[in-house]
């Protein structure tokens, strides 16, 4: 029987390797896999490339990985938020590499990786500094920049509900980067608030079909009391 539910955050990230690229879902404080990130920090894999919209604030979440100097490079759209002190410190030191990507291009590159698309032409950034050195093309009179697919070794994502097949449902704006990232990594691990029985998630409302998800870990033990 298919059962993608894992017992602990620690075991679910235990085979992340030094040098891996790791996607981390979330936007601001919304839809972040905080317990998976903490398990990754304790696991201690180094030299990581982190792909996420932000570069962390305070000491928690992504910032905790930066503080422990586990991250070699970050690919994001908005590294500079109020309180992104660890990113700013490492950036000044030259201790972290930044690949800045417009937010929609970041999301689309991630989707492309999951969808088997090698690259795409986007109008975003055409004629700007972020298109320098990139191929461009004029299609029907409009300028476009070629952007390539952005896959990862691992995706750490956050959803609200899951089942043992790995189907996922999110909460409100907690989707953000989580669904496209689920499709784009060799190993996708989802932190969820609860695990429901297979068949209890409405098939019309499942956002991430289980085929994209390898491991599910619940934030606390949960039994399907309705069953």
């Amino acid at each position, binding site marked *: 029987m298919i059962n993608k539910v894992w017992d602990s955050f620690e075991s679910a990230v235990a085979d992340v390797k030094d040098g891996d690229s790791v996607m981390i879902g979330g936007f601001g404080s919304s839809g972040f896999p905080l317990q998976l990130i903490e398990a990754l920090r304790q696991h201690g894999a180094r030299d990581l490339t982190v792909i996420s919209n932000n570069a962390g604030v305070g000491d928690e979440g992504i910032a905790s990985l930066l503080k422990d100097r586990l991250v070699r490079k970050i690919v994001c759209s908005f590294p500079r938020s109020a309180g992104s002190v660890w990113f700013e410190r490492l*950036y*000044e030191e030259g201790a972290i590499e930044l690949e800045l990507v417009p*937010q929609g291009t970041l999301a*689309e590159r991630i989707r492309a990786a999951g969808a088997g698309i090698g690259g795409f032409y986007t109008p975003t950034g055409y004629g*700007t500094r972020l298109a320098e050195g990139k191929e461009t093309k004029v299609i029907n009179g409009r300028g476009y920049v070629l952007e390539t697919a952005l896959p990862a070794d691992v995706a750490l994502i956050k959803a609200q509900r899951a089942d043992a097949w790995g189907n996922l449902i999110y909460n*409100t704006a907690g989707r953000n980067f989580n669904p496209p990232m689920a499709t784009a990594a060799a190993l996708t691990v989802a932190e969820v608030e609860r695990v429901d029985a297979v068949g209890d998630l409405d098939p019309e409302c499942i956002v991430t079909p289980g085929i994209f998800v390898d491991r599910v870990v619940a934030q606390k033990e949960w039994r399907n009391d309705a069953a």
Partner: protein
Amino acid sequence: MRLKPAEIAERVAQDIPDGAYVNLGIGMPTMVANYVSDDRQVIYQSENGILGVGPAPAPGEEDPDLINAGKQFVTLLPGGAYFDNAESFAMMRGGHLDLAVLGAFQVSEKGDLANWATNNDTYPPAVGGAMDLAVGAKQVFVIMSHTTKSGEPKILESCNYPLTGAAVVKRIYTDLAVLDVTDQGLRVRQLHGDNTFDEVQALTGATLLPALS
């Protein structure tokens, strides 16, 4: 005579049509929603995957996942919907939003927009969704002060800050005036209060055209 930020926002709000799909940038643009009159139904999009953004929740009623692009707690209006970031930016880039209202560091007379980076290279750059909105929305309105704090013009023949998008701005709302970006150049649409054309021209780094009568 200079409008206060809230007054500029109120002026922008007058030009948002009933039924429009609108994205409001972080900061001053977000204030625009406070002034849209109740007889207009405007649907706000948030880049992180919300269509139909409603007002701030009552204290204690916050959904920790339900925030806007500025990371503020919001609500969802009846008729609203959620989607992921890839879909959200597909919506933006695909030309489905009627209007984006954005802040700016500089705007050129050709409608070039600079609002994501200065020339200060010691500071790490950040772009967020600005470039996608700039090229994607059917119309881009800029809301900003007419000059920098030190009095330098922000409306220029060409931007000297890195561009967000080329030839994307349609109209500029400042504390001094409302300007349209036209094929002929920057045309005054409205002078606030008793401001004269010459006063506004003197604080503008590009040649202005007088309002059409």
